[in-house]
């Protein structure tokens, strides 16, 4: 279940992050304000609180999500908010000259953002985004407290049946670690593949 949860949440989370990042940089005052507030709330609330609100509190106002979809929604919002900070920063760090050149050729603003700014900004944001995704893998353990069948919850159940805490929790931990490490290496390869010769942070 953990893997499913992550595979679904990650792409939607990234998409949300791009939307929020673009909204904050290019949106008008109202749009930008909404985006900034969303980011502030979901970066300020602990992830577990967000999960609890979605699963336990929303039913009070008539909104019901299953455990699985509560978790997906919660993680999408949280990771999207954190990632949008990287996206926003990277958009702003793409040199102004790129924007001018695009305009000088007659590109409209949407064309400029989609074809020129975002391709460069997202490449630069990749390390930060992959970092957040690794965090997501680890925080998915919290979903067990809203009823999602995932690694930690299973471990806890095992432990209450056969009390061998060190073995059980160490194994559970190492499973997460394995998933996280594989993803980490995967992202390194991805970064390498998308690298433009000469373009990159000087160390």
């Amino acid at each position, binding site marked *: 279940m953990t893997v499913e949860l992550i595979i679904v949440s990650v792409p939607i989370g990234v998409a949300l992050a791009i939307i929020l990042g673009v909204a904050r940089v290019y949106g008008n005052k109202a749009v930008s304000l909404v985006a900034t507030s969303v980011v502030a709330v979901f970066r300020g609330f602990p992830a577990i609180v967000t999960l609890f609100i979605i699963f336990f509190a929303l039913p009070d106002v008539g909104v019901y999500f299953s455990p699985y979809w509560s978790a997906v929604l919660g993680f999408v919002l949280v990771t999207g908010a954190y990632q949008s900070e990287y996206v926003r920063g990277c958009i702003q760090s793409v040199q102004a*000259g*790129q924007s001018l050149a695009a305009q*000088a*050729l*007659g590109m409209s603003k949407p*064309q400029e953002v989609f074809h020129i700014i975002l391709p460069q900004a997202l490449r630069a944001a990749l390390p930060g985004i992959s970092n957040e995704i690794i965090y997501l893998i680890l925080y998915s353990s919290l979903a067990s407290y809203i009823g999602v069948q995932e690694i930690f919850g299973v471990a806890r159940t095992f432990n209450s049946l056969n009390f061998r805490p060190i073995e059980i929790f160490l194994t559970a931990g190492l499973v997460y670690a394995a998933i996280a490490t594989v993803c980490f290496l995967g992202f390194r390869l991805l970064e390498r593949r998308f690298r433009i010769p*000469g373009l990159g942070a000087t160390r």
Partner: protein
Amino acid sequence: MTETNVVLKVEGLQKSFAGNKILDGVSFEIDRGQIKVICGPSGSGKSTLLRCLNLLTMPDKGRVWLEGREITNEESNANSVRQRIGFVFQEFNLFNHLTALKNVSIALEIVKKMGKDEAKALALKELEKVNLANDAHKYPAELSGGQKQRVAIARALAMNPVIMFYDEPTSALDPHLIGEVLDVMKKLAQEKLTSIVVTHEIGFARTVADEIMFMGEGRILEHGPPSQIIENPKHEAVKQFFRRINELYRRDEQ
């Protein structure tokens, strides 16, 4: 639409930034096939002028006509105006994530809605014109400054503009690379591509320009053929400027 020989007409252009008046009433015309050079001390508003003319910066006051149609009124679409003006920046501003070829072809595909193959073919042709067809697959970071600027020129040319603006195209280049860019610009000038060039390269102005416009204090202080402006100017500021430059050249010759 009247058939007109005047490609660009500027009237009373004014622009201030943070209370400083950068442009204080600039007016001039340029005919088809003419090459005009703008020079003057730094801060005289030369770059601002060019950027106002293609609406990258919006002027505060004044009017501009491109091929007889006013571009500074509300009906004009800035994007379509800029398609007809080629702009070459001092800092090149090549798109870093695209190859040289893609840099030239991308606007053709997105803005002019050309097919991919057609755009690629046209881009290759323009790169040939600037002697860079062999480096078409390279990324900007792999090119020298002179090569980058030539790609930038090709990129602007590909859009088939009616007029070219060059904003100090060689100021950011190492001295040994300036020549290759100036050669390309000379070739284009010989083909009678209407151009306005902001530059400090007096030698270029002397041989290529039809007219030099000298800017200072936000206005055109004096304009005329190169021989007049450089050797025999009337305005005091222009005299001083070229006197110093001539001294510099004479000192080098010694």
